[in-house]
């Protein structure tokens, strides 16, 4: 390969440099019917799961077909999206905040050929490229993080467990049988780039072993005071250690106080935590971000640990499938998973979902813990 210059001159980096221009302006990319009717939409309606239309005050309509997709996506597949957009949608397309792709057309007659085309496209391995669904009272795409494909701190993979989970939940992606929408999210470590802490069901990667200490390199690779300051439980202190006949500056960790958050490793690469047996998955449930009927809620830990069972994480997907099915059969119409759990009581939630309640699930982290214990006699047998 020969180096191809873009025109950038490393000797004169400021020459012709363009900076601070921001993203492309949204309205450059609007389909014409969107540009015309923006701010003047009247209502929307679903034709089938994944297919809906909006009607504007002008009488114009826009039909949207939503498809799921892996957020890890090749240029090959993006080119195929562009091809479909050209073929059916006048060259326009959009993505949703949950990694779905939306193809929009301005005429109902264009919907069926578009859906047929999308559903007919499959990968070599047999999976759908563009499954239609993910709307209404069902399960839409999982928002998630990088995992083992590109991150340095994960306690589990992201794309793998997401694929395994969506395969198990696929019927509910294609259907709207649930009492309300149900959002599943995955974050591969506590940093939660995916912010799963307010999801109906959250899959969270978690470490369970304190950091190892690479004493020989620790002072060379890290700012020791930053590593110490990074610890939320003050479990790290400075220490002198003997190494190869030398006294080296390093740190000591009080393992009893470690909560395995990995914040020290974020600041200091000489304190790795990851471990095949130690790492795995925490399942949380009952969160939401919508203000509908009740305030947004945090997800609660309902399973303290499940092992990383690559490639298909069968225990994780089984717990999730069970929770979804019990919720589907037991909750009232419009109840989100967390609202249902609160109405029947969490003790009943564990019973119905056949989940063991262990000491790990009782909060013991600082002040907020007290407010989660039961200060009443209002419990169920």
């Amino acid at each position, binding site marked *: 390969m020969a180096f191809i210059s873009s025109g950038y001159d490393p000797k004169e980096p400021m020459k012709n440099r363009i900076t601070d221009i921001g*993203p492309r302006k949204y309205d450059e990319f609007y389909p014409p019917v*969107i540009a015309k009717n923006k701010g003047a939409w009247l*209502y929307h309606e679903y034709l089938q799961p994944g297919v*809906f239309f909006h009607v504007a005050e002008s009488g114009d309509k826009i039909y949207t077909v939503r498809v799921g997709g892996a957020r890890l996506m090749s240029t090959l597949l993006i080119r195929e999206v562009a091809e479909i957009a050209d073929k059916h949608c006048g060259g326009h397309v959009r993505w949703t905040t949950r990694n779905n792709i939306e193809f929009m057309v301005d005429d109902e007659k264009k919907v069926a050929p578009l859906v047929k085309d999308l559903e007919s496209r499959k990968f070599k391995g047999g*999976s759908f490229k563009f499954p239609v669904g993910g709307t209404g009272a069902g399960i839409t795409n999982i928002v998630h993080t990088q995992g083992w494909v590109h991150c340095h701190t994960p306690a589990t993979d992201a794309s793998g467990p997401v694929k395994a989970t969506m395969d198990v939940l696929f019927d509910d992606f294609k259907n709207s049988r649930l009492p309300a929408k149900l959002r599943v999210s995955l974050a591969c470590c506590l940093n939660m780039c995916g912010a799963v802490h307010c999801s109906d069901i959250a899959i969270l990667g978690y470490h369970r072993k304190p950091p190892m200490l690479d004493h020989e390199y620790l002072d060379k690779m890290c700012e020791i005071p930053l590593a110490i300051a990074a610890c939320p439980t003050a479990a790290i202190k400075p220490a002198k250690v003997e190494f190869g006949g030398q006294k080296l500056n390093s740190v000591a960790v009080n393992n009893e106080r470690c909560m395995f958050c990995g914040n020290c490793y974020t600041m200091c690469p000489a304190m790795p935590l990851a471990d095949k047996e130690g790492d795995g998955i925490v399942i949380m449930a009952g969160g939401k971000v919508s203000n509908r009927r009740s305030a947004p809620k945090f997800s609660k830990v309902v399973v303290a640990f499940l092992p990383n069972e690559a490639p298909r994480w069968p225990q994780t997907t089984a717990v999730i499938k069970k929770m979804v099915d019990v919720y589907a059969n037991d909750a009232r119409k419009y109840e989100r998973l967390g609202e249902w759990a609160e109405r029947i009581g969490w003790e009943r939630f564990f019973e119905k979902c056949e989940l063991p309640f262990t000491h790990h699930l009782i909060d013991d982290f600082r002040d907020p813990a007290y407010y989660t214990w039961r200060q009443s006699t209002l419990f169920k047998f």
Partner: protein
Amino acid sequence: MAKHKTPLLDQLESGPWPSFVSDLKALAEERTKNPTKIDFQIPVDVVDDLLGLLELSFKDGATHWKHGGIVGVFGYGGGVIGRYCDQPEMFPGVAHFHTMRVSQPGGKFYTAEYLRNLCDLWDLRGSGMTNMHGSTGDIIFLGTRTDQLEEIFFELTHKFNQDLGGSGSNLRTPSDCIGSARCEFACYDTNDLCFTMTNDYQDELHRPAFPYKFKFKFDGCPNCCVASIARSDMSFIGTWRDDIRIDQEAVQAYIGGELKPNAGAFSGRDWGKFSIQKEVIRLCPTECMWMEGNKLMIDNKECNRCMHCINVMPRALRIGKDRGLSILVGAKAPILDGAQMGSLLVPFVKAEAPYEEIKEVIEKVWDWWMEEGKNRERLGELIKRQGFQKLLEATGIAPDARHVKEPRSNPYIFWKEEEVEGGWTRDVNEFRKHHLR
């Protein structure tokens, strides 16, 4: 023939959900064949090696990526995340595999032409793998080498009028819901406010000067489709303060069964005949709705705009006309002191260009946080450490009962001396004249 055997990953090719493994394999094959004769600027087998490395992680149950190195483009402190693998000899194609964040357009609308341009650039100068999109909202270019960073940036800015996004201790790329572009619930133009704030604060976005990361997210209504209330240091949620508009004929059409409740979003099960009493009036959290004969009545003053009735009967009920947004502050994920939800700071402000009133609040919050925040302290943590009152003082916002769910249940008030009649300086000898020792 694939470069590496991937028996574990291969098991993720079956099943209905789109397989990222199949997609990766297809791209690896395409690069090997190279039908369009691209003069690849990074190793041709980069995707093969990415598959091989991922297979090794599936086997080992751990990542094989090292901490990021400090790489970037000249003059920016963010937008590029350095990434190196810890098995460079086995997988030389991904020995250097940096991420670039490309600032996404509002509402994530694209043209096919623009997408192809990005693909051409990324096939030539990168791995061809992306995230559509990253958690913050950017288009993520996943994997290139250091010598390509300036080249990519130069082409993005010169050819495509396109900038990088944020990373590190700066303003992260703001993101929005689809807003009034295609949603009748949107109470303001999220695309425009997001675009304006992104461009007005380019310096804050590209050059880290904050104690830690800072996120803006823009939700058009209280349904919160971009989760701003959970995921952003400053959350802008559309709302209104006048009356819900009622179309009484459409109400009757829902009652009569001519219109499908919830726009047909519950079609997968027979929930029985629609009952406005059971499904709307009795589920209203403030009990501010009732029927008077055939008329649906709403005591709008008592409505807290939860959206339930509007979600159920979108053809009968519409958001009010006096629209704006609420600003909530301090949301974050659990690291370190537990997760926080956004707390209400501004109950209502108009959202009209050029958004000066909104910017005034933003800048006062930033001034306070940059002055008082410790290294790696999120805004929400500073508010917890110093107290909500300090935030009100810093922003000059008057305390309001809307700021709390309930008033405090302890009387430990930090009275200020000037609030107490006569001040705090007293004469103990004078006191003793009437109170013997």
